[in-house]
């Protein structure tokens, strides 16, 4: 099919606009080459690093899956107390551990005992402290006795509102020659706790000590497993998040929720300041990011984040009150803080800042995890930047292609028109009858130029494939080709096929590539383009009577051939090419109509 030429269909470009466009396009060439080279290099580097990171994460993930049993300390200690009762009786019993300057109660038995999790400040309990440092049990066989310890304990129990008790003992929980806690027992019967019962209870105390240590060890492992899980989670999410702000907020949220840290902020280095991004990007009702609203520390000068951004080294401040770098803010409950640099190629681009409401809130493993997260964020940031750059590059490439096509077609036609017009102008003065030939030439060039422009404008607006359809698009392509080259190009197409825009675009691009190859390499005289529905498939066939080539060998346009095949396969179709030397080339694309 052919489409009649009508100058009203397309928005025309004035010569001025046209010249400006051409100039602009030319300028992009140099930019493009530079950007291209830089991108290739970065892309390669990024690919390598992403691969590396993926391997690490896979390993970490395996480790975290290995720890699957849950070990709960409280039921276990309760069990120890229950077993103890069968050997050494009690009315009241408790197991507590030393936690900083408190005794933290972990398990109890008997009426009126404080809840597990309660704390007893050790400061006032001189006797208990002495017992713990001696690592030997203390006991009062008869609380009614007039010994100092008996008097002390009577008062003590009364203060806790515990009555009817006449015998009492305390045994230290010793692990690796360290007192880590206390087993306390009380009995209504005077003289119940004697040396031999105390010794028996000691054995259970030791058991409890081992259980507690195991549980602590397990908790540490569990925490590490959790940390690894967080690393993998961040890694997995990072790959799907492309918006920078979203990425930072998500990362901060995961860190906070998984580790229970007080505050998590991620700041980026902008000029000479660290600007915290997470609070701006988070929804306003989100408490998580509220703190230090107005703080944008100067790199290398202000705050802990500023120091880290300046030095590029991670920093742990166990007690912020003792560190002059700490900048306190309103209602701040921060007691310790750590900041980790986010680096790309040795350059600090941001800081992950984590605050805890506990003194000594961070240990070595926290640092390892946070550093790993910082590295991932760095990769993601670079990724985001590359995505942006790749987009720009694609646009530049598109413009360069357009520039080439303008050069190859319209600009040559325009030059011909100038020459023809100049000739006609001169001949009109000399012998007007001779002006017919150059005028005909101008006319044919103008028509060809118009067809070219339509094809080019069409390429600039791929949506016209939807509004005008594939058949019209192929028509323009074929017309432009016939006008530009000494070729007879025909299009045979039925009505517009009922397929998706993706399929149409693929077929259009394949036709375009095939026709380009024919012009460049085939030295053909006739080209046929056929679009038809056959049975349950849509077929696009392009054949020429050119030189052909050996399909088994490397040949010019080889890459284009691969691209065409990929385009066809991407929309569920097949691509076949038949050619032989001096026997022309036949290309057939089949798209199953069920696949639309």
């Amino acid at each position: 099919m052919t489409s009649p030429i009508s100058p009203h269909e397309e928005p025309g470009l004035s010569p001025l606009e046209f010249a400006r466009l051409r100039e602009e396009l030319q300028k992009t060439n140099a930019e493009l080459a530079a950007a291209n080279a830089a991108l290739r290099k970065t892309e390669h580097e990024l690919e390598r690093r992403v691969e590396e990171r993926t391997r690490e994460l896979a390993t970490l993930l395996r480790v975290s899956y290995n720890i699957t049993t849950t070990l709960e300390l409280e039921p276990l200690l309760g069990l120890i107390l229950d077993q103890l009762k069968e050997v050494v009786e009690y009315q009241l019993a408790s197991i507590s551990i030393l936690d900083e300057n408190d005794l933290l109660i972990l398990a109890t038995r008997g009426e009126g005992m404080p809840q597990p999790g309660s704390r007893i400040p050790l400061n006032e309990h001189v006797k208990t402290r002495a017992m713990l440092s001696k690592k030997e049990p203390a006991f009062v066989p008869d609380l009614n006795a007039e010994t100092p310890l008996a008097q002390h304990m009577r008062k003590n129990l009364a203060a806790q509102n515990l009555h009817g008790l006449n015998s009492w003992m305390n045994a230290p929980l010793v692990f690796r020659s360290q007192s880590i806690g206390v087993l306390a027992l009380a009995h209504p019967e005077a003289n119940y706790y004697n040396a031999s019962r105390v010794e028996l209870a000691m054995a259970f105390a030791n058991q409890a000590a081992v259980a507690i240590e195991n549980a602590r060890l397990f908790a540490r492992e569990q925490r590490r497993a959790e940390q690894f899980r967080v690393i993998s989670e961040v890694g997995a999410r990072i790959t799907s998040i492309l918006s920078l702000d979203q990425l930072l907020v998500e990362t901060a949220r995961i860190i906070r929720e998984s580790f229970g840290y007080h505050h998590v902020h991620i700041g980026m280095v902008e000029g000479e300041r660290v600007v915290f991004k997470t609070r701006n990007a988070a929804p306003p009702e989100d408490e998580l990011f509220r703190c230090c609203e107005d703080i944008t520390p100067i790199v290398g000068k202000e705050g802990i984040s500023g120091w880290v951004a300046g030095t590029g080294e991670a920093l742990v401040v166990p007690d912020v009150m003792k560190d002059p770098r700490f900048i306190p803010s309103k209602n701040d409950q921060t007691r310790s803080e750590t900041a980790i640099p986010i680096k790309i190629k040795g350059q600090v681009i941001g800081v992950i800042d984590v605050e805890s409401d506990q003194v000594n809130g961070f240990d070595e493993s926290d640092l390892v995890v946070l550093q790993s997260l910082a590295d991932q964020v760095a990769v993601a940031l670079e990724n985001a930047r590359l995505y942006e750059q790749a987009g720009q590059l694609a646009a530049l490439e598109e413009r360069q292609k357009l520039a080439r096509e303008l050069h190859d077609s319209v600009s040559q036609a325009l030059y011909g028109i100038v020459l023809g017009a100049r000739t006609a102008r001169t001949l009109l003065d000399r012998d007007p009858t001779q002006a017919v030939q150059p005028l005909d030439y101008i006319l044919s060039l103008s028509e060809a130029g118009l067809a070219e422009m339509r094809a080019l404008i069409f390429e600039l607006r791929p949506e016209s494939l939807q509004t005008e359809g594939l058949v019209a698009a192929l028509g323009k392509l074929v017309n432009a080709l016939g006008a530009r080259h000494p070729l007879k190009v025909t299009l045979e197409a039925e009505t517009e096929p009922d397929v998706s825009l993706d399929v149409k675009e693929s077929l259009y691009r394949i036709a375009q590539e095939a026709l380009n190859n024919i012009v460049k390499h085939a030295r053909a005289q006739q080209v046929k383009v056929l679009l038809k529905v056959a049975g349950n498939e849509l077929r696009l066939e392009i054949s020429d009577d050119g030189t052909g080539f050996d399909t088994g060998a490397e040949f010019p346009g080889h890459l284009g051939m691969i691209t065409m095949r990929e385009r066809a396969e991407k929309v569920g179709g097949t691509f076949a090419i038949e050619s032989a030397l001096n026997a022309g080339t036949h290309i057939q694309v089949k798209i199953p109509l069920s696949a639309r």
Partner: protein
Amino acid sequence: MSIRVLLVDDHSVVRQGLRMFLSLDPDLEVVGEASNGAEGIEQVRKLHPQVVLMDLVMPVMDGITAIQNLRKEFPDVEVIALTSVLEDEKVVGAIRAGAIGYLLKDTQADELCRAIKAAANGQVQLSPQAAARLVREIKAPDSPEKLTERETDVLRLLALGRSNKEIANELVIGEKTVKTHVSNILMKLGLSSRTQAALYAVKIGLVS
């Protein structure tokens, strides 16, 4: 006798337009056409043109390669590079390869005839902007063989855009002698065209 011109351009519409336009000038005769550099060289062998209008971006053999080969085989045939703005950056390459000048495809058509005639006379014609840019690119040996006084005179006049005939008249010597001087200058400076010699003269401050 009219000047014999060969057109080398891969766009047939451009060749057609050029032929039509140049045929208006009785001093010019388009003796043939070629659609790429290799064909162009073949046609020069066959048709012996005085001036070749050479497009730069072409399949099979590009314009710059063709100019290099032509200058080696036919030092008397002058080549004018005819380029689109898009290929502007290739101009330096064309001049270095030995083109006597270059014209943009936007150039006023009248100037085309004038440029062909100047080239046929061995006159170097470059726009000041182009010359400024090209001077930086011109490469002559650091310590070239010393030119004689007469050769220096010829080089100066050549750089001022004079034809061989004009130089001969001014120095009161024969035209053939001028040609010999020019060949010697090019050989001593290791350059391949009058244009390069003219640019060299500008570079060393012989003319401004």
